[in-house]
């Protein structure tokens, strides 16, 4: 089973990586479609938990890709998924490195950015909503999600607090 899933894992993340304009989280809904809906590698809640695990660890948000790879095809899956997600885009960045002085501050680029950034933020918000609905079994997870939204939005404190309190509330009330 692991052999069979490795190839779709790699091609799937290759495609996602080239779509991931605006960073890793923006493609989370598409990742969810691939992992949960198309291939049935895990259910909604498992997906939300894997994402949470990646958030609880330091490092780029994109590490969730490695966790999904691990879940599907073990250590080989982790390395393959991360390489597929980061390899081609890193090569692209390498090629573009010289352009940066020409591109930065150009007027057309500011116009482009101003038009695209709201869409990228919308995609990130949609990712959060999908994750929240995956985690929402009963009223307490919904309350935790809402409180965590407010905390991260309205304060400058480390988001780690949210995860710690979420774990404590879950551990006490969700059993």
């Amino acid at each position, binding site marked *: 089973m692991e052999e069979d899933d490795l190839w779709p894992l790699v091609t799937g993340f290759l495609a996602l990586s080239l*779509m*991931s*304009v*605006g960073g*890793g989280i923006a493609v989370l*809904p*598409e990742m969810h*479609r691939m992992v949960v809906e198309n291939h049935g590698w895990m259910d909604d809640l498992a997906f*939300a*938990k894997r*994402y*949470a695990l990646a*958030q*609880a660890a*330091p*490092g*780029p948000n994109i*590490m969730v890709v490695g966790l999904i790879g*691990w879940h599907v095809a073990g*250590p080989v899956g*982790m390395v393959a998924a991360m390489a597929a*997600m*980061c390899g081609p*885009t*890193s090569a*692209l*960045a390498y090629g*573009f*490195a010289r352009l*940066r002085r020409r*591109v*930065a501050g150009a007027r057309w680029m500011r*116009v*482009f*950015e*101003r*038009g*695209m950034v*709201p*869409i990228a*933020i*919308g995609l*990130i*918000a*949609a990712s959060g*909503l999908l994750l*929240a609905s995956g*985690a929402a079994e009963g009223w307490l*997870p919904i309350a935790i999600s809402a409180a965590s*939204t407010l*905390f*991260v*939005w309205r304060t400058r404190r480390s988001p780690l607090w*949210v995860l710690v*309190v*979420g774990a*404590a*509330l*879950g551990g006490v009330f*969700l059993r």
Partner: protein
Amino acid sequence: MAEVPGKLELFLGFAKIGALGFGGVGPWARHVIVEERKWLTEREYAEVLGLGQILPGPNVGNASVMIGRGFHGLAGALLATAGLYIGPLCLLVVMSILYDAYGDLPRVAPFMEGVAAAAAGMVIGMALKMAFNLKASAQLVAVGLLAIAAVAWLRLPMLLVVAILAPLGIWISLRQARAAALAKARP
């Protein structure tokens, strides 16, 4: 460019960024690269990150490739990227093993469900923060809301959503830039 780091320094600097970056590495990257090690000025860093955001792929991952190349060519790009991912990846291996062993135990699962709900809220909160910092016009806010509705509620494929909304957003942005330029020319 203020200071040119050696190859080992480059690797260690990015390793520090990766290891410290709880909840995303963005803020730590700026702190280490600009303030602590003074590899780039604020402006240079903003340029690199801006380009990293437009290209597909993780923003800071792209920035590490470009910064690494700037200092030491291909070797620099590889070292910076390896530094960024090595610490978190090792930790993630350990966490995956623990999670596979204990994650679904009845005693552990409730904790993880609480963390999952909190992490979901973190993403929404971050999007709200970014949205309010942007101070975009009402029309562009509407474009962002359309993106949310299309993806989260209608569950349309992201490529379709971006293909439709990107031209709309850029058109609105272009019109506003023109209007602003006109207002400047004729006070």
